[in-house]
């Protein structure tokens, strides 16, 4: 179960793509041609005049309503979103590339130019702010000016605190505090819960491994930055060897900058560095330890799953949708889980064949049950979030969970294919970042237009917008 989840995370991260290609569509013609009325030479004059007036009104209305809509619907989201994307961008070292695209859009004679300018302003003011905050105030839950910390930091902090105090009430206290301060919405709170649960689990497993390898841990942690960088580069390079792609250079250098960013993260993260060294060997060791005859099916399934997931990660990193560091960490997490579960299962089987009794396996299966229980609990939480969020007024999906799930699935798949194609189709293009924002604007505009026309539900449009804005 666990690896499915991690695998799914990887799949999910497809959508965190970077470069998308040009999408030139002047806005005025979109509205007009939706009717295509001017093609007919036969329409009575009155009608044509009425049409022209209606179009005029139409053209003035959307631009007015949209900026306010945008602001209203996503101020909170936008803040956190920006915080997250800012952090990501920081790590990817693409900050410098960010500002010129928005500078370019200023030149576009576009109805949406006012929208873009707003974004630029906001980005400018918070960008530097976040930089400062990130360095100066690692402990507070929120900043003095009300902007929340990046979500990941919050999650880690809360998880750590819960772990330390061994009390789930900590989470509730913190979340209610955030809710009262209006820093997060309810749906975000639910999501936070999931994140924290996951981080907590990571913490626990880290600590468990910590305990096992206590001797080696301190040495790795006391290594200096340079050492850690080299550690990162080695596994990253190992991963990259698998990617036959000239973008490797970029990603390797990103990895270097990444490890610098990593230094600022909380403790659990640093422990990952050590384990990454053993990342591949771990899996292969397990594989060979599986008795080929008896566990052939297991082995094959494992291999297939592993291969697929590695392919996913490769693809993701190749397209730049996730950083190599993230890819490695997910695979590592996956590896852990596989190792644990398979080991348990094997031991259970081997003791079965040996003694045909179940005292020992029961212990192992108890462990297994624990981890699967956690996974199940996580699943329930996820599902619960899903359920709750559909009831929530601000939900991304309307209607029943099943339908909504299927629909979002379909839309996600479609968007993924679109972006894949755009990337493939425009390998030669250099203006990739620029076109991402343009694409996003286009999608936003189209989604709104479609809602007006009754082609899309409001919720669907929001879902699509959110997906694109999260890229």
């Amino acid at each position, binding site marked *: 179960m666990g690896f*499915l989840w991690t695998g*799914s995370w990887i799949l999910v991260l497809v959508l965190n793509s970077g470069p998308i290609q040009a999408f030139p569509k002047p806005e005025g013609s979109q509205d007009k*041609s939706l009717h295509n009325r001017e*093609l007919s030479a036969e329409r009575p004059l009155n009608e044509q005049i009425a049409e022209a007036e209606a179009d005029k009104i139409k053209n003035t209305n959307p631009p007015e309503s949209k900026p306010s809509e945008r602001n209203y619907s996503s101020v909170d989201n936008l803040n956190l*979103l920006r915080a997250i994307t800012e952090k990501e961008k920081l790590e990817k070292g693409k900050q410098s590339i960010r500002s010129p695209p928005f500078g370019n859009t200023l030149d576009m004679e576009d109805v949406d130019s006012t929208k873009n300018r707003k974004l630029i302003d906001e980005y400018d003011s918070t960008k530097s702010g976040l930089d400062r905050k990130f360095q100066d105030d690692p402990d507070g839950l929120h900043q003095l000016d009300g902007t929340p910390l990046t979500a990941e930091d919050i999650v880690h902090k809360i998880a750590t605190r819960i772990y330390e105090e061994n009390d789930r009430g900590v989470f509730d206290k913190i979340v209610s505090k955030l809710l009262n301060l209006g820093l997060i919405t309810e749906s975000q709170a639910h999501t936070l819960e999931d994140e924290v649960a996951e981080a907590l689990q990571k913490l626990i497993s880290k600590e468990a491994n910590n305990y096992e390898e206590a001797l080696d841990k301190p040495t790795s942690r006391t290594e200096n930055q340079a050492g850690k960088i080299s550690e990162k580069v080695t596994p990253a390079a190992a991963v990259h060897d698998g990617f036959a792609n000239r973008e490797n250079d970029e990603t390797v250098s990103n990895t270097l900058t990444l490890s610098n960013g990593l230094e600022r993260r909380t403790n659990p993260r640093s422990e990952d560095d050590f384990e990454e060294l053993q990342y591949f060997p771990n899996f292969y060791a397990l594989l060979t330890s599986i008795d080929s005859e008896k566990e052939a099916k297991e082995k094959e399934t494992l291999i297939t799953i592993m291969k697929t997931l590695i392919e996913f990660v490769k693809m993701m990193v190749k397209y730049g949708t996730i950083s190599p560091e993230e890819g490695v960490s997910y695979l590592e997490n996956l590896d852990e889980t596989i190792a644990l579960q398979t080991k348990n299962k094997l031991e259970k089987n081997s003791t079965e064949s040996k003694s045909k009794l179940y005292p020992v396996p029961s212990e192992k299966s108890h462990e297994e049950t624990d981890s699967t229980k956690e996974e199940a609990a996580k699943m329930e939480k996820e599902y619960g979030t899903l359920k709750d969020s559909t009831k929530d007024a601000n939900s991304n999906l309307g209607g029943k969970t099943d339908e909504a799930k299927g629909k979002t699935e379909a839309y996600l798949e479609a968007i993924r294919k679109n972006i894949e*194609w755009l990337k493939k189709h425009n390998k030669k293009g250099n203006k990739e970042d620029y076109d991402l924002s343009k694409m996003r604007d286009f999608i936003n505009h189209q989604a709104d237009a479609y809602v007006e026309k009754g082609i899309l539900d409001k919720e669907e449009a929001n879902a699509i917008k959110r997906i694109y804005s999260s890229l």
Partner: protein
Amino acid sequence: MARRGGRVLLALCAALVACGWLLAAEAQEPGAPAAGMRRRRRLQQEDGISFEYHRYPELREALVSVWLQCTAISRIYTVGRSFEGRELLVIELSDNPGIHEPGEPEFKYIGNMHGNEAVGRELLIFLAQYLCNEYQKGNETIVNLIHSTRIHIMPSLNPDGFEKAASQPGELKDWFVGRSNAQGIDLNRNFPDLDRIVYVNEKEGGPNNHLLKNLKKIVDQNAKLAPETKAVIHWIMDIPFVLSANLHGGDLVANYPYDETRSGTAHEYSSCPDDAIFQSLARAYSSFNPVMSNPNRAPCRKNDDDSSFVDGTTNGGAWYSVPGGMQDFNYLSSNCFEITVELSCEKFPPEETLKSYWEDNKNSLISYMEQIHRGVKGFVRDLQGKPIANATISVDGIDHDVTSAKDGDYWRLLAPGNYKLTASAPGYLAITKKVAVPFSPAVGVDFALESFSERKEEEKGELMEWWKMMSETLNF
């Protein structure tokens, strides 16, 4: 934070996808859905095409998915609303969606005009998805088609009727339930009967094209017209469609104009002026459908009279007389040539058969679209190069004219042969050109028309010249 939330949702969804994949890998794919499981999505089934019936919400979703996957070449719009308020959705596929590029012909498919004739509706949804997929795969035929044509696909003209038909319990659907729109109007008998007018004009003299010119206002005020009918009429008037097909069910044949018999009898071959090209067009559809073009196929029902069927095609009137149909309305009110395709003996067959209907029709659907690039096409301009809209292009020997669109562009579908084309416009001198037309591709013929006033000026100039010369010679 929203991104996180999105991630979580996506994680769940992606997990489901991964689950599905694994299940499939272990050959544990769940069997065909029971009636209650209509909502289940089989995403991975053949490139994202799920071969199941789409109700209105799913239809919308499917089209939105195609748009999301192929934003560069697609656009969704609506031509109006059904009686019960459902959008009459169209998905447009073209290299510049939303824009008529001068010289680029416009094509349309309309399905499910009879709500209980469901195969057409589904095929069109599959087609939209297929075109998107194939385009992204670089399928040359599809890429060229989409770059050179503007394709409009309306899966359902009668979504209300479909809902009624689909809501029937069990697999066996009634022959009539859901056929008409929510008002009980049979949409394919609801169009203004221009055939009648044409038949009169044939006897007494008068035009046989663009007959709606004077009737447009009447259309809007006509209370007998269903909202769906009105919406389509406006659609036809607004976009210079060149070729079209209207998908039905209940039999297996490609039917071409005229649908209404001249004498009013039940069966009579009623050819239109463009009988030759229409036979070719109909055959272009049927010949790629192995069942439709099978000469040894038994009729759909034991006592059916399919004596008029030739190579899977039939003249409308020869089969049975249909007044007020959309097919003939297209031909007589606009430049658009439309045929009616009957896709299935059973009007609303079981869901499991949809995939095989797709396999049978997929090549036909593509082949028929390609027919739009036949005959003659070009621009009608004045001597300064400015386009002349609404110019008339007539073909010697074929008593049916087409007109040029806003950019002066025209398209005249013709069977192979030698023709004389004449372009004319009020205030301009007509020009005739000889053209040899192959089977395909379309031959480009442009016209540069001289206006009367220009000619007058020319003649005046000539006269002055002559006078000057005379006066010089004769010394006065």
